[in-house]
């Protein structure tokens, strides 16, 4: 069990390798993953004026002249915009910004790379968006906790999962950073949306879209096939899709965080020694 941390794309990405491979093999694998992320950042970053995406945005470069993979990403984002009723829109800000797609997709591809190298049991966690393959150890599922978006030191959900992905979009990490493309305003009705599914690209994009939808998100999420979802609104109310209950870990969260299980400030007779 070794966790490597790759600093790239403005964040720290944890690469958790569970195959017990030799250290050199693990380092080679992590290097390959790091190189992939570096290419993705150089190509898609909106912070780099020389990236392909920045040049496309300035009309310095026509989409037809861009690398094939970039063209594919833009097309895929358009398909996802339609799938999400327009709530996932890489042009919501008026500029071309596929970051909401690229992060999850880059992790998804990195996970594929690790499998190709033979690292079949691993997890990659990029700022709370996670792709898991295989198992953490024989006979055990991956146990993933979701940080409570409103309570600083608490976990609000714990799930046990086989291979798959967990994506959380919320206001806790970066403030109200997701726009509702239909109104142009910041999405503030929901504190966080978590989606569990087979593929991190879709899970991440749908979580971002659902956050932008606000109060109509549960109705949309409930109809999605093959994905389980969990929502905390700005008032702390929770909603989960029917598929989520079977994934919940068999533990009482409150046992592990006394702060959540106790009702606030109930007066108690204290025993003073």
């Amino acid at each position, binding site marked *: *069990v*070794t*966790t*490597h*941390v790759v600093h790239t794309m403005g*964040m*720290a990405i*944890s690469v*958790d390798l569970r195959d017990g491979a030799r250290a050199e093999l693990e380092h080679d694998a992590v290097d390959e993953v790091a190189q992939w992320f570096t290419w993705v950042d150089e190509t898609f970053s909106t912070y780099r004026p020389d990236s392909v995406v920045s040049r496309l945005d300035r009309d310095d470069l026509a989409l037809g002249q861009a690398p094939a993979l970039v063209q594919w990403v833009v097309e895929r984002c358009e398909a996802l915009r339609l799938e999400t009723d327009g709530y996932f829109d890489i042009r919501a800000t008026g500029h071309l910004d596929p970051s909401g797609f690229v992060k999850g997709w880059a992790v998804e591809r990195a996970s594929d790379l690790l499998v190709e190298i033979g690292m079949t049991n691993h*997890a990659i*966690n990029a*700022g*709370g*968006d*996670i792709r*898991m393959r295989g198992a*953490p150890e024989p006979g055990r599922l*991956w*146990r*993933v*906790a*979701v*940080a409570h*978006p*409103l*309570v*600083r*030191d608490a*976990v609000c959900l*714990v799930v046990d999962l086989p291979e798959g992905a*967990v*994506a*959380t*979009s*919320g*206001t*806790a*990490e*970066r*403030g109200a950073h997701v726009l509702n493309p239909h109104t142009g305003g910041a999405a503030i009705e929901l*504190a*966080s949306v*978590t989606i569990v599914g087979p593929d991190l690209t879709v899970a991440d994009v749908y979580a971002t879209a659902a956050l932008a939808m606000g109060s109509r998100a549960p109705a949309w999420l409930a109809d999605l096939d093959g994905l389980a979802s969990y929502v905390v609104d700005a008032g702390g109310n929770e909603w989960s899709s029917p598929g989520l209950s079977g994934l919940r*870990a068999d*533990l009482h969260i409150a046992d*592990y*965080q006394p*702060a959540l299980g106790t009702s*606030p*400030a109930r007066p108690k007779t204290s025993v003073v020694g």
Partner: protein
Amino acid sequence: VNLATSSGATTGPPTTSAPAPSASNSAPTTSTTPPEKTATGPVEQNRYGPVQVRVTVRGSTLVDVQAVQLPSERQRSADISDQAAPMLRHEALTAQSANIDLISGATYTSESYAQSLQAALDAVRQ
């Protein structure tokens, strides 16, 4: 969400002093395997400043986490640090006791902490 105000808990300043006087925090080079090992992670920068932690493990079990360094330059950072140190410690030990492998949707400070913690754990394992 204001990181500095979201907990109701009132907590003291980070306890960076006096490692628990356990029997075995010693002997970096040994002939016998010590039951507990301590390692200090690298300094990680987040938007509020540097974060560095020291972890103690017994076998593969995390037994303690201490903040060695937390942001303190500005008042806002100090407010966060006062609460962050005990909370981060609590989070790490909680995750360990519940066998949690991964955290989704972690907040900024936790993330920075996690980097440092993981690096420290790697150092312990080597």
